[in-house]
């Protein structure tokens, strides 16, 4: 197969993969933060004097919620800027051309 077509194929699929990573990470994080914030507001309404402590715990859990989404974003950005799959295609093409 022609090298340009191969690279375009891989890049197109990588773009789709990156969008899925971003989208599903955002989806899960949004639902998680919604539930977390709702429970926090409920807790504050029940016992306003614990507001400060609850907010500290809320930020702790918020950091944990962000975690896997951010790991996904880190990898997705790596795929965008230094795509290893394209690298594999180009090196395979180089060896094929060299063998010919």
């Amino acid at each position, binding site marked *: 197969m022609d090298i340009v077509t191969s690279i375009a194929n891989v890049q197109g699929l990588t773009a789709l993969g990156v969008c899925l990573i971003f989208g599903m990470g955002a989806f899960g994080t949004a639902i998680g933060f919604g539930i977390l914030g709702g429970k926090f507001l409920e807790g504050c309404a029940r016992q306003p004097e614990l507001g400060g402590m609850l907010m500290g715990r809320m*930020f702790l859990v918020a*950091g*944990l919620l*962000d975690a896997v*989404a*951010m*790991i996904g*974003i*880190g990898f997705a950005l790596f795929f965008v800027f230094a795509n290893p799959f394209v690298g594999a295609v180009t090196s395979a093409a180089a060896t094929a051309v060299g063998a010919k």
Partner: protein
Amino acid sequence: MSESTGITPTQYIHHHLSYWTVGEGFWALNLDTLLFSVGLGALLLLGMYLVVRRSTSGVPGKWQNFIELLLTGIHDNVKQIFLFDNPVIAPLAITIFIWIWAMNFMDIVPVDLLPRFAQFIGVHAFGADPEHVYLKVVPTNDMNMTFGLSLGVFLLTLYYSFAKKKAVLVVPNVLMNVVETISKPLSLSLRLFGNLFAGEILFILIAMLPAWGSWSLSLVWMLFHLLVITIQAFVFMMLSVVYLSMAHTTHDSHSH
């Protein structure tokens, strides 16, 4: 800005994502990460030393007040989680929080400021090609840094896990903890790395917009990023303390 120097956006991004690497293979050291992390640590130590030297038990000055605020805040948070007796925890938690926060804060410095300065020094003092002077100012942007931090904490938890418990059930214990052993340092490090890396990429992308977009959007993102760096430093510290406290629990019936 990118038009006058004739580089494409992709080249700009790649330039900003490359480290100042010295050496090769296993010994490829990211000098910018090392210099900024150690330098920031030294700066913080110096600052705290200068304040502590003149501390008084009477009415405190501004800086002493600030440092006391910080330390009592960390102390209150850690005290609720770590219920054992270990003199290492307090300095560890303080160091982790303040150091990681300071390293993360380097992300707020404008994207081109320090790299341009380094380029200037490189071209005029060393005659280097300006395209090949790389400088990444955020140490926690580097997976090496975050893995170093999390592996350090992880080794501490391993040490205390073995030291504080009786040796009878070592083998089944270790086997049951394999998943934790893999996931804890990995998640601790990649969480911090992912947040900071994404933040820096966004700053770089915003810097490539025309002036109206660049100034307004970077203000917005910077304000949000201030929250993110504080949360991430806090989460790293709290999770380290939680893992260490889990390593110290013995479920010993006669110690209650």
